[in-house]
């Protein structure tokens, strides 16, 4: 794996590439009478780009929300491996979202969830929140240790700004930026957490071909140069087949396929889910 020529590692996981990072098993989520996810199980491997695809309403975002703690599934586990060789395991289900974030699970949202009134820099610095150790009292006086720490964090944030090429808009309030830039800032905020697992919910939704290409490039940079494990939801099949190492396919809350892009694209169930019955006959 290539390493970045920057000073700070963005990958927060100390697992070897190729070992399981996140084990999802038996995940079941119901909203009243509707089963959004039924007994989902798969494994995200350290060092992979793992795509989750499926038609609208298949439960992709629900799955991501379960992993990041925003939804509480009725059954199942999502086990995250951390520490040297994955010695420590944490079941993310029933853990509060901010605890999950502190384990290094970072995410972006389908409909951008940035702090619109804060600047790009402030948004990214907030990505450092879990790594800032100073207590409330030093924070209140904001001098000495608190300040020194912020300078170090700022250096890392600047590297992320360079990586995502958002230098020019650093001091602009996020709400005033173009959509494509906002998507990048959201990716940047997640990266600033030095994530062990990066969850991206449709990072290319609503973009034109050129913006999509840029975003795919950034995701590959994050993955190849920084070595961050990425789990992403995407609709654009070309993009998914290009950049992912492994693909899980959901349809009506069920896992209908899980494998390499080549395997999945040959799978008759997947073809049926995407193209309908007639064409497979």
């Amino acid at each position, binding site marked *: 794996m290539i390493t970045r020529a920057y000073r700070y590692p963005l990958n927060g996981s100390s697992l070897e590439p190729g070992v399981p990072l996140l084990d999802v098993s038996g995940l079941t989520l119901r909203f009243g009478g509707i089963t959004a996810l039924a007994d989902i199980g798969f494994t995200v491997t350290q060092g992979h780009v793992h795509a989750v695809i499926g038609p609208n309403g298949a439960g992709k975002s629900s799955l991501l929300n379960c992993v990041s703690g925003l939804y509480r599934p009725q059954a199942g586990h999502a086990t995250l491996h951390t520490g040297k060789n994955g010695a420590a395991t944490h079941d993310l289900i029933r853990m509060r979202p*901010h605890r999950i974030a502190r384990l290094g699970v970072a995410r972006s949202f389908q409909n951008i969830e940035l702090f619109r*009134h804060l600047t790009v820099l402030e948004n990214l610095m907030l990505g450092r929140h*879990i790594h800032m150790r100073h207590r409330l009292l030093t924070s209140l006086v*904001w001098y000495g240790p608190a300040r020194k720490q912020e300078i170090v964090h700022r250096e890392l944030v600047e590297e992320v700004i360079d990586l995502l090429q958002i230098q020019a808009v650093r001091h602009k309030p996020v709400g005033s930026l173009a959509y494509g830039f906002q998507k990048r800032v959201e990716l940047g905020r*997640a990266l600033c*957490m030095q994530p062990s697992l990066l969850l991206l919910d449709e990072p290319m939704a609503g973009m034109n071909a050129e913006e999509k290409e840029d975003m795919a490039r950034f995701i590959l940079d994050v993955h190849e140069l920084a070595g961050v494990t990425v789990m992403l939801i995407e609709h654009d099949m070309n993009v998914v087949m290009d950049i992912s190492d492994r693909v899980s396919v959901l349809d009506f809350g069920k896992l209908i396929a899980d494998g390499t892009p080549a395997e999945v694209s040959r799978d008759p169930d997947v073809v049926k889910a995407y193209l309908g019955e007639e064409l497979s006959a």
Partner: protein
Amino acid sequence: MSEFFQLTLFGLSNGAILALAALGFVLIYKATGVINFAQGHFLLIGAYVFYAAMLVFGFHWSLSIGIGVIAAIALGVVVERFILRPMIGEEAIAVIMVTIGLSSMLGGGVQFFFGTSPKDTPRFLPAGSMELAGATIPWNRISAIVIAAVVLTAFTLFFTRSRHGIAMRAVADDQQAALTIGISVRRVFALAWALAAVTAVIGGILLANLTGVSAGLASFGLVVFPVVILGGLDSVPGTIVGGIIIGLLTQYTAGYIGGGLQQIIPFIVLIAILMVRPYGLFGQTRIERV
């Protein structure tokens, strides 16, 4: 001219104290979305705790201020944890009624422990006065303005610069996103209530020295509402401008018109502002298109 000086000074000092209390109100509204009708009574609590510590128990004034601040933190955290947190997800009107109930409880609690008669004034600000252009300028008013300005500046810096301050603004902006970057929204809520109580209590302590300690302080606290409506419910600079405008207006009305009009002038402003600029001078314009 000398009367004008004097009224201005009194207006500025009252306004600065109002700004402190209003800052707490805005803090709670921004971070948690709750409209806290008990904010004025936090002033009252501050004044009485300070009075009790200094004159009943005989502590040094600096220690008494410390006790007041600690009591404020405890009050804020307890109120958030046991009264407001169970109300999360309830209708806005229900939450407002709860804070109105809280204000009655605080007011009643003060009467229960201290009775209804006015108390001695706990004095810690420098006494005496100076003559300026024929006006008598009391030192305690000057020092109250300085202290309030320092506290307001410190809090403004805290919000704009520090990690916890920015975390609070982040929660105000987008709670879901704040959770997913590892900010504990519950702790931010508790922090907002604690800081809001602290600013109000500092205001109450200053007020205790300037006007004495009595149940009437709560009616001074009520003027917080015109201040935040004028400045904008969610604007920190708005509290300072709003506080000073209302403070000056009240004093000028008292000095030049009188007849009790000064007691209702803030509320006349409140109604006028609601008709002309419902989001206040600096508040965010919220237009919902349906």
